[in-house]
């Protein structure tokens, strides 16, 4: 048990810090570190910045060196994220490509696929989006109905996806499609790479309760992709899809923890300013939030250490359940700290609905306990796959109505 840097780690930290000191200047230094994967503030400047990151191989940090990565271990990834956050560097734009798709590609892709896609992800030339959920496949993801049929050398795709973050920015989408409608739910699914810039693909923004449209609907109407654009085996895409979810649930919360620390620090400052810190009940809740965000870090470090030793599986669900609940509670606390002021939003009446950061947290965190596996699903996974509790018995005669 040791939370100090080894000499190698200290050297790496120095390298990161030095690089950031040299490059995070001018307009890049002014963008600031806020914004999650779905945030489009200062998009163009952030893209420009991330291309510089990519050029110097800070994008794809953990990838094998043969694909342009640095083969960074978890400790190094943590160090990079820490220093990146401390430097208040711009929020990353390539989350879905670098953090979700690339690890899946490295694990399941052919050599050809890796050579085709990884460099463009690193150079921030191609953005990716995730085509998973459908109107009737939310928590029950295996119920997807989007069909792909092989027609000569091409897959022809028809169906609808929802909650597709940044689909309007993406050149590619990793889509799960049903390629064998007669097989059992999990058995006929393929993991397909589909270009977005084609007539058969329509992206429609989906406005949230925040007033902004972080997500999209994506319609596939005879869209197509080449025959070899399947990751893993045809009809065996479920496990590939689950691997991506593992990356989503597993690593995403690490950089999030740093962002959350920052959010809490800002809230404490607000509470000092408006004297909410005079109230014992607010003090209790601020302390509880601090405990929560620190434990998020400790949990993350324990998980990373265990990863070094072997594998991380469904335990990732603990992290997702934890951070989404914590962030939701923080949003509620923020409103109570602000009091009546919390109810006044940005701008004039008649303007577009615009929230300040704390209000945005209050609202947007409502989606966080739902997307990427709702809290109820995470509890099922923890119960069944971590604790080994029995699954619900199979249903022999399920009700068939759909809406």
């Amino acid at each position: 048990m040791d939370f100090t840097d080894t000499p190698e780690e200290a050297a790496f930290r120095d390298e990161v810090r030095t690089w950031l000191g040299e490059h995070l200047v001018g307009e890049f230094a002014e963008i600031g570190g806020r914004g999650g994967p779905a945030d489009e503030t200062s998009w163009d400047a952030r893209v420009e910045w991330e291309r510089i990151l990519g050029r110097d191989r800070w994008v794809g940090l953990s990838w094998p060196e043969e694909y342009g990565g640095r083969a960074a271990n978890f400790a190094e990834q943590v160090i990079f994220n820490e220093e990146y956050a401390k430097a208040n560097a711009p929020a990353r734009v390539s989350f879905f490509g670098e953090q979700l798709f690339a690890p899946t590609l490295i694990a399941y892709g052919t050599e050809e696929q890796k050579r085709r896609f990884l460099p463009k992800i690193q150079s921030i030339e191609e953005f990716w989006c995730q085509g998973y959920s459908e109107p009737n496949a939310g928590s029950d993801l295996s119920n997807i109905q989007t069909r792909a049929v092989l027609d000569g050398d091409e897959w022809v795709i028809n169906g609808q996806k929802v909650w597709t973050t940044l689909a309007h920015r993406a050149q590619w989408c990793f889509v799960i499609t049903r390629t064998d409608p007669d097989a059992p739910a999990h058995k006929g699914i393929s993991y397909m790479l589909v270009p977005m810039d084609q007539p058969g693909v329509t992206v429609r923004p989906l406005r949230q309760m925040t007033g902004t449209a972080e997500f999209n609907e994506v319609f596939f109407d005879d869209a197509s992709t080449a025959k070899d654009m399947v990751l893993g085996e045809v009809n065996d895409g479920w496990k590939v899809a689950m691997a991506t979810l593992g990356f989503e649930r597993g690593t995403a919360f690490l950089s999030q923890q740093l962002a959350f620390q920052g959010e809490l620090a800002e809230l404490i400052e607000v509470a000092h300013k408006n004297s909410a810190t005079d109230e014992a009940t607010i003090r209790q809740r601020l302390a509880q939030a601090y405990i929560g965000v620190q434990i998020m870090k400790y949990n993350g470090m324990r998980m990373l250490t265990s990863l070094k030793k072997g594998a991380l599986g469904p335990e990732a669900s603990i992290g997702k359940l934890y951070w989404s609940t914590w962030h939701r509670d923080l949003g509620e606390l923020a409103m109570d700290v602000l009091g009546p002021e919390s109810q006044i939003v940005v701008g004039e009446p008649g303007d577009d609905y615009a929230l300040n950061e704390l209000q945005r947290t209050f609202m947007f965190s409502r989606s966080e306990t739902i997307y990427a596996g709702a809290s109820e699903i995470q509890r099922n996974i923890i119960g069944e796959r971590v604790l080994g509790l029995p699954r619900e018995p199979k249903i022999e005669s399920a009700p068939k109505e759909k809406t």
Partner: protein
Amino acid sequence: MNFAFSDEQEQLRDAVRKFLEAKSPSAEVRRLMETTEGYDEAVWKQMAQELGLQSLHLPEAHGGQGFTFVELGIVLEEMGRVLLCAPYFSTVALAANAIMNAGSDEQQGAFLPGIAAGETIAALAFTEPNGKWDASGITMEAQGNGDSYTLDGTKMFVIDGHVANQIVVVARLSGTNGEDGISFFSVDGDASGLTRTPLATMDQTRKQARLDLSGVAATPLGDPGSGWAALSKTLDQAAVCLSNEMVGGAQKVLEMSVDYAKVRVQFGRPIGSFQAIKHKCADMLLEVESAKSAAYYASWAAAEDNEELPVVASLAKAYCSDAYFHAAAENIQIHGGIGFTWEHDAHLYFKRAKSSEILLGDATYHRELLAQRIGI
């Protein structure tokens, strides 16, 4: 002992529900919430002329119908159910009560008939930028004597303050503090020196304004300096009214959740057959029913104007705030992805629940007030 609404009261509820279903469907709420005014003039008039809603609990001597807070509660519950966009809470539940509590019979005669007829929109301006709900939050000082005072300063978070023809302003005599010196004044909506700034609100279905007063001429309501009892009572009555309004919204989101849980199929089963969802709904029902019990009992205490009112007002406000917010939040969770889209109404209730929770002091504030009132 009889804890039920009378047949006449149920008929009133039916009539109001029918009217509001016709006049305030979701599309209309969404239209009005995007406007700065935040209400429909024609509907406002119809409410007064066809249903007599603005005059319901006002004294018959001043154009009212002489009903009680129980009937007013029913109307507010129905309005909360459909998120009616109208300056009803501000005019009837805040300003009219303030006038009745603070004003002389003559003053009531001057102001209430306009409200009863749907001609006056009134607001109660008592909170300030400090955001406090108690006497210490009132720092605006009144200068003058007799019938002639002037007011300087800022009132904030004034519900419908931007559209009110008549504003009841709470200020204090200079040199006083705490509950001493609290005074009510009437100010015209278009008074010289009054700047009204509509605010962009998180809950777009309830509008707020900032009022900047600079040497504004103000007529005392009642006896300047001795207004605390009237203000305290007005706030208690408003808390009761708001509790009933919240109950209407809470019941509605419960129904939305249950209806959706019955038809939404995942894993080959309606999601309501899973205990995770079923038990959420059960807890919501328990809380919504309990909120109703508290709000209705509080209406009765307000109608009787008995000594229980301060305690049950805080009790109802605290419980209903928590229950509504919890139900509105669970409603989003139960709906999953569509629950947090702009198109779905779940967020409108969620935002109304939060704005109502904060309005007049949140649950923590009212629990502390309750503790004091029951001698803890």
